[in-house]
């Protein structure tokens, strides 16, 4: 699944990094303490957070995540947007909180949503 597919299914809004929307996603990581996330988020994860600053973009680049989702409509700083565009790191925004968003991601990645649709 690409991050674009996931974003469509979860109704996230793209804020930056359009070049990266075809990045594949096969997992999810949730966290706001950047130094913690830096060492733990895995390549291929979609990263759910409320940190929309330049350092978050650097962490995303370093951890090679598929993209960032800023939950609860948390803001993306101007310089962070510019850098996400340059690096091709897709950044989305959504209204639901981290838990609700993670649950939505789980539904999609586990195939649960697909099964539910058949019922």
């Amino acid at each position, binding site marked *: 699944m690409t991050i674009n597919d996931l974003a469509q299914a979860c109704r996230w809004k793209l804020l930056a990094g359009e070049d990266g929307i075809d990045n594949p996603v096969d997992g999810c990581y949730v966290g706001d303490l950047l130094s913690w996330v*830096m060492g733990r988020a895995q390549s291929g994860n979609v990263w759910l957070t409320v940190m929309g600053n*330049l*350092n978050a973009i*650097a962490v995303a680049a*370093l951890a090679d995540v598929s993209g960032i989702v800023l939950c609860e409509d948390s803001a993306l700083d101007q310089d962070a947007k510019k850098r996400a565009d340059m690096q091709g790191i897709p950044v989305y925004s959504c209204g639901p909180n981290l838990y609700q968003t993670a649950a939505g991601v789980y539904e999609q990645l586990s195939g649960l949503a697909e099964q539910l649709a058949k019922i």
Partner: protein
Amino acid sequence: MRELSLNVMDIAQNSISAGAGLITIEVREDRGEDTLSISIRDNGRGMTPEQVEHVTDPFFTTRTTRSVGLGVPLFKMEAEMTGGSFSIQSKLGEGTVTTAVFKPSSVDMIPLGDINGTVSMLVLMNPELDFIFQRSLITQEGDLREFDLRTTQLREVLGGDVPLNAPDVTQWINEYLAENTAELLAGEA
């Protein structure tokens, strides 16, 4: 980072990489003003004004192994998140001073953590370098408490034969720091 002492370790590593022979670490708390100030001063090779300007940008790094450097940017962010401030002053050929000021009462304050462990580890791992560690606390009542550790003084006492990373020396440093910290924080922590 989970502890500010880890940031201190990280910044001190920058000083070591910059060829510093003397690194001074200051931790100053003022309970009345609600500030905790951490500064790391070195006599390393320093930076150009252009480098200083870019050093808080995580996509600017002197590393060649990867293109992202987050040590300084995270330290700055952590200070600013508490309502504090951050500065770097540097002069080519003279050295660098990195200062982060925190507001400990902020909900986003990160604990100082094991600063003594950081200092002890720095001395242990770099016995050929000199370190000064200064810690002070101004209590709510305005009393100043302070102590310091100076490796130059340790060298004088030890003479030339005993290195600073000898096990007995490390143990003495740990006990000295622990005792003085306990005295500094008595009735305040």
